[in-house]
């Protein structure tokens, strides 16, 4: 409750400062709020100028989360003008195209959004990002971010981004009444799923709802994780697991078999359409990241365990396959100090709580205010704190953009040919 009150005071102070132009007020209001969390450098209070932050958050909970974060930033740094450089469309593919041209032209935004992990490798090898280790030391983030996360975003001893949230990708969603009607439980393994799928198939229900190609890549990564196990899956990305191995073949064969139990019109559906099939009872299961939870709970006003239920995807109990949105500091940013101020807010406990409650994800920090999150996210926070961690391929953690694109192409070809050997061979080539 304490924090909620603080938040209310702060939000009020922030809006008052903005609307009335009472700049002095904001800094007094600030004294109590963030002092506990990270002790921002005193000098930054006097920072002015502007900061351009580039993202692809332009709608729904994402935009609401960004706005909540901006509000806190404005309250903390009232003299810095925040320029929202968001580019809409395509889970960031449009934004990345714009970003690539700006980086090529040496005109970077002051900070830009990117999935934490290997997706940033292109920028790192091109020498376009600053090492943020100094900020992690200064703000004490090393001690509040999980030990499982840091190695996955550290490159040669340097950390290049500040994660603001964590999403889970290995979640299987289900319609509880469909399960009850057919006497089915959440499958713990893919073999369990196949047994359930036969029953559902006979009852005229789609066993697993599936959407367009990227959701199929998403399904594929969870099947790989479930069939290989966490350490072998993680080994795929650092070279310690052989892509040509028999266990990968078996996983691809399982994937091919899973596809037989999906809707025939998958390629014409967005992920929301696939979730809708589960909501309507046309399908029993769906595998999607936990942003789907907001779609069930907020967009469709469903109650958890009545309208929808969830479990770790088959074979992945005890493993948290994650993805994370993060912000970076490009080299030669026009407003470096202001960008650091933005990153400080993005990495603070107050900032992460404000952002994630809106976005429907959990904070990367482990000291968040658990009480303000809905039940699903609380369970995700527990898992995040206790589970083994694996990275998501589809969402930029494990493989560079080029590698991911090669696997995506191989998957696309596989969907047409269903040729397991060719698919695996293409993935071996892509890894080489």
């Amino acid at each position, binding site marked *: 409750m304490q924090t909620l009150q603080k938040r209310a005071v702060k939000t009020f102070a922030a809006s008052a400062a903005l609307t009335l132009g009472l700049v002095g007020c904001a800094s007094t209001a600030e004294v109590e709020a963030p002092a506990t969390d990270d002790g921002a450098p005193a000098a930054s209070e006097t920072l002015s100028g502007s900061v351009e932050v580039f993202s692809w958050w332009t709608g729904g909970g994402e935009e609401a989360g960004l706005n909540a974060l901006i509000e806190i930033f404005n309250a903390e740094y009232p003299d810095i003008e925040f320029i929202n450089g968001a580019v809409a469309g395509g889970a960031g*593919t449009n934004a990345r195209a714009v970003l690539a041209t700006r980086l090529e032209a040496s005109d970077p935004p002051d900070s830009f959004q990117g999935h934490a992990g290997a997706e940033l490798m292109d920028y790192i090898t*091109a020498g*376009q990002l600053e090492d943020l280790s100094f900020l992690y030391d200064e703000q004490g983030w090393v001690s509040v971010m999980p030990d499982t996360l840091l190695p996955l975003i550290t490159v040669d001893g340097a950390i290049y981004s500040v994660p603001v949230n964590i999403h889970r990708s290995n979640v299987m969603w289900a319609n509880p009444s469909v399960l009850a009607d057919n006497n089915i439980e959440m499958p713990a393994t893919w073999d369990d799923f196949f047994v359930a799928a036969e029953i559902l198939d006979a009852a*005229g229900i789609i066993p697993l709802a599936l959407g367009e*190609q990227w959701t199929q890549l998403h399904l594929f990564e969870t099947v790989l994780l479930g069939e290989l196990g966490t350490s072998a899956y993680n080994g795929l990305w650092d070279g310690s697991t052989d892509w040509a191995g028999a266990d990968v073949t078996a996983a691809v064969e399982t994937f091919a078999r899973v596809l037989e139990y999906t809707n025939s019109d998958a*390629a014409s559906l967005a992920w929301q359409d696939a979730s809708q099939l589960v909501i309507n009872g046309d399908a029993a299961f769906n595998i999607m990241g936990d942003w789907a939870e907001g779609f069930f709970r907020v967009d469709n006003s469903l109650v958890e365990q009545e309208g929808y239920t969830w479990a770790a995807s088959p074979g992945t109990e005890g493993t948290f396959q994650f993805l994370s949105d993060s912000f970076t500091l490009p080299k030669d940013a026009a407003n470096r100090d202001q960008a650091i101020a933005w990153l400080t807010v993005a990495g603070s406990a107050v900032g992460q709580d404000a952002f994630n409650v809106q976005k429907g994800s959990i904070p990367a920090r482990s000291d968040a205010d658990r009480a303000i999150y809905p039940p699903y996210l609380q369970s995700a926070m527990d898992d995040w704190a206790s589970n083994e961690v694996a990275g998501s391929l589809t969402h930029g953690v494990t493989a560079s953009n080029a590698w*991911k694109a090669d696997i995506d*192409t191989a998957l696309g*070809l596989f969907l*047409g040919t269903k040729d397991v050997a060719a698919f695996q061979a293409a993935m071996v080539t892509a890894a080489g």
Partner: protein
Amino acid sequence: MKKVLRRHWPALTLLAPSLILLGVFVYGFIGVNIQISLTDEQGLNADANFIGFDNYIALMSDPRFHIDVWNTAVFSVAFIGVSLFLGLGLAILLDQKMRGEGFFRSVFLLPMAVSFIVTGVVWRWLMNPAEGSRMSGLNLLFDSLGLDFLINQWHLTPTWGMLGIALPAIWQMSGYTMALFLAGLRSVPEEVKEAARMDGASELGIYTRIILPMIRPVALSAIVILGHISLKVFDLIIAIAGKQIALDVPAIYMWQTTFDAYNFARGATLATYILISVAVFVIPYLIFTTRKEKV
């Protein structure tokens, strides 16, 4: 030389800005693009080494590119063929001096005013391939009319999916083709037709022996216009199906490999390929028309 300059300097001065802009922003960039396609440039700010035609050779054995070429071929043949056929048919019907010609002309021409993105979104709904109780769009229409045999997977049909993409393109462009043919038909002098009738030619004979040969240049223009649209098709597919390999074409591959994977060399190679394939269409046409104008 001096004389030429003195005589033409006003024209040259007026043309200079557009010539310079075209030179830099069209031909200059084509040059840069070809240059990149001959290197191994990958990743941001990466070093690029000259590797000759390796990218082009690699593309020839790229299974995704094979799908692209197949898809483009299927799309082009269906789109150009059916559009020409429908366009000519509609033009001949409208040419019968019927009443309300202006109205029908506008009706058929109007789809052209819609952008491919809008057409794509509408047809994405119409061509919904869902089955059973979730059936909708055209399949639902067929179902309720008892025409079950017509129900199909549309653009998700394996191998031939591009025929489904060609449908909206035909819907959109056959009216335009009709307008081209109609203008051609109207340019055939009435005297020629009269003379043929006097000689006892049938109406069908007049069309096949006299009118169609006379409007061959119009058909050629139509093929070139439709051809370059079909070889560069991008927005329509994105609106209907997004980026999925089954309905991949060179333009989508180029976009993905350039901006998602930062493989600039391969992107430039694909761009050059698209340019060449369009040039194969357009350049003979340009030579043909300039030659004719000189005569």
